[in-house]
């Protein structure tokens, strides 16, 4: 079971993702990557979709990776990983490869919810043994904060901007966690960069699953969300406490909450402190906030009803 000491031990010497990358201060991505990789025992191979993580860690001729790492394109990380996994299976069957490495995919929400969805769906359906970890920062951050299928209702982005008539994105976000679960894969979980122990346990279970596993990890972006880097933890905590981003898992089809907030915290405390939501907190847009609250409440009730 993942313990802080074990995670720290895996960071000694040559950590999977080393220093020297150029991800922003306060970015959740390196926390997600290091927590997930440190929590998974044994050998690991990383496949990475195009995005912030790829760009910020592998500017040629440098690399921040101390584990095998491969990037091909934006939309195909799951297909590339399927090829790596099939290669490993074929070579091991012929006695040409040693101890099985865990294939871990990292992709942003663009590479998961949108352009990468087809390849991901195919890989989940075919049953490849891999851990697909989405670092979901709710927009295309690498290209400058454009809306994605993961961008929540009301968020201002550069392609869903606020203005004299614009109110930000006026469509709901996809429920990618449930889309993944609908593939009947052995393990799916929703986690966040701020709850490291919860994330580490889920990464461990994902790697142990006999088949594809999907981790949907809410990860902040100080630039795109509009918050001070040092406030990343309290903002992600608010996503969990307001029940906007419930922490749960679906193991062999069974939903289980892995954390239950004690008090009812209104959605305002998630919206507050992020510039992308600032317009929603103006008095004339109270109706939009009520809409968001109603959606969060309904989703939570639905989740409670199916969870043990």
């Amino acid at each position, binding site marked *: 079971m993942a313990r802080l000491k074990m995670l720290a031990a895996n960071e000694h010497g040559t950590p999977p993702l080393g220093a020297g990358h150029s991800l922003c201060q306060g970015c959740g991505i390196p926390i997600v990557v290091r927590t997930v990789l440190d929590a998974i025992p044994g*050998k*690991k*191979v990383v*496949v990475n979709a195009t995005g912030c993580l*790829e*760009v910020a860690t*592998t*500017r*040629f*001729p440098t*690399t921040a*990776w*101390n*584990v*095998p*790492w*491969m*990037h*091909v*394109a934006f*939309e*195909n990380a*799951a*297909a*590339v*990983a*399927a*090829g*790596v996994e*099939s*290669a*490993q*299976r*074929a*070579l091991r*069957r*012929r006695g*040409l*490869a040693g101890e099985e*490495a865990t294939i871990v995919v990292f992709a942003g929400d663009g590479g998961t919810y949108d352009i990468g969805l*087809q*390849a991901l*769906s*195919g890989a989940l*359906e*075919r049953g490849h043994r891999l851990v697909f970890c989405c670092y979901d920062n709710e927009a295309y951050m690498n290209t400058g904060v454009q809306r994605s299928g993961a961008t929540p209702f009301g968020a201002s982005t550069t392609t869903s901007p606020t203005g004299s008539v614009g109110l930000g994105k006026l469509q709901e976000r996809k429920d990618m966690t449930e889309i993944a679960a609908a593939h009947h894969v052995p393990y799916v979980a929703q986690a966040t960069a701020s709850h490291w122990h919860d994330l580490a346990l889920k990464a461990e279970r994902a790697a142990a699953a006999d088949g594809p596993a999907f981790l949907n990890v809410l990860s902040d972006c100080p630039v795109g969300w509009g918050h001070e880097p040092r406030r990343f933890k309290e903002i992600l905590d608010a996503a969990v406490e307001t029940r906007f981003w419930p922490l749960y898992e679906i193991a062999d089809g069974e939903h289980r909450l892995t954390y239950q907030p004690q008090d009812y915290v209104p959605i305002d405390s998630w919206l507050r402190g992020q510039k992308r939501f600032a317009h929603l907190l103006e008095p004339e847009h109270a109706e939009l906030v009520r809409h968001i609250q109603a959606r969060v409440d309904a989703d939570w009730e639905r989740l409670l009803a199916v969870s043990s």
Partner: protein
Amino acid sequence: MTAQLMTGGEVVAHAMAQIDPDVVPVYPITPQTPIIQHFAKLVADGRAATEIVNVESEHSAMSAAIGSALAGARTITATSSQGLALMAEVVYIAAAMRAPVVVAVGNRALSGPINIHCDHSDSMLVRDSGVIQLFAENVQEAYDAMLLAVRLAERSDVLLPVFVCQDGFTITHSAEPVELLDDETVRAFIGDYTLPMPLLDVERPTSKGPFAMPDYYFELRHQQVQAMACALPAIDELGWELARLTGRPFSAIEPYRLDDAERAFICLGSTAGLVKDVVDELRDAGERFGLLRICSFRPFPEAAVADALAGVSEAIVLDRAEAPGARAPLYADVAASLFGADLELRGHVYGLGGRELHPDDVHEIAEGRCGLYVGLRGASWPA
């Protein structure tokens, strides 16, 4: 060596079973489908131990092929037309990442309008992608080229994807007598797959597919040019090695009755069979015609083409692809090869979307009675 009646699809599947690749990620499309169907059956019958990955698109087929090949597994895939168009993005990346994937292509016209029959527009779409493209003339050569392609792709000075192109339906679905090597001979010829620095070597981790800015991008791209330059002599070297086993030559070009020719046709693929017959007829009538078949379209054997055509007074290029707004692709390459040479050069476009080319058409071309577009109807159609 045994002779059998087989289609191009069957013979490629047979070659694949003999090669016994580790991984075959593939997606069905006409007219390539017979290849993967026959191969799947051969695997189901225990003739190969390959991991077939039935992916959800050609984009994923090539993506998985890159992952598999660079992980350290011998990898083959197959496609046609729209499938090749869909995977085009990743074809470029496969070449750039130096993934030695062998791709069996059943050439088919690109949409639109949608069409399932042969032309070379799909191959031309990835002309500049950095992949090697070998064009087979017939079923026999499709078999030979598959075996050669494995060795060529995996040479440490090449490490590029190799496309083995065969004309859709004309070769993929047509049965011809073929001579097959026995399994042991094939295994001995292709040898083991040893990729330098495979991804799965966790003791010596590598970062594959990094981000390169103006300070390195140009140099990294240029390595592909150098690999292509190495591939050209390698085709002939491997062709000789294979010929010692098969008794059949394989080279970047095939000159046919060119030695004393005054006029020469130049073409790719199965059309060469028909043109050879017409050349024989013209020779019988006292006309000194010959044919230069381009077997390796990429790398393009520019010096060999110029050399082979040095003695002719007229070169006639037959293109099975159109390049709207510019001259057709094979014509452009031949013209560049012959720049400054003292001869007449003309080109014709034929056979788009599977339109048949008849011997009479080639005679008309020889007689100079044919326009740029062979068999194209005028303004009066469809009346």
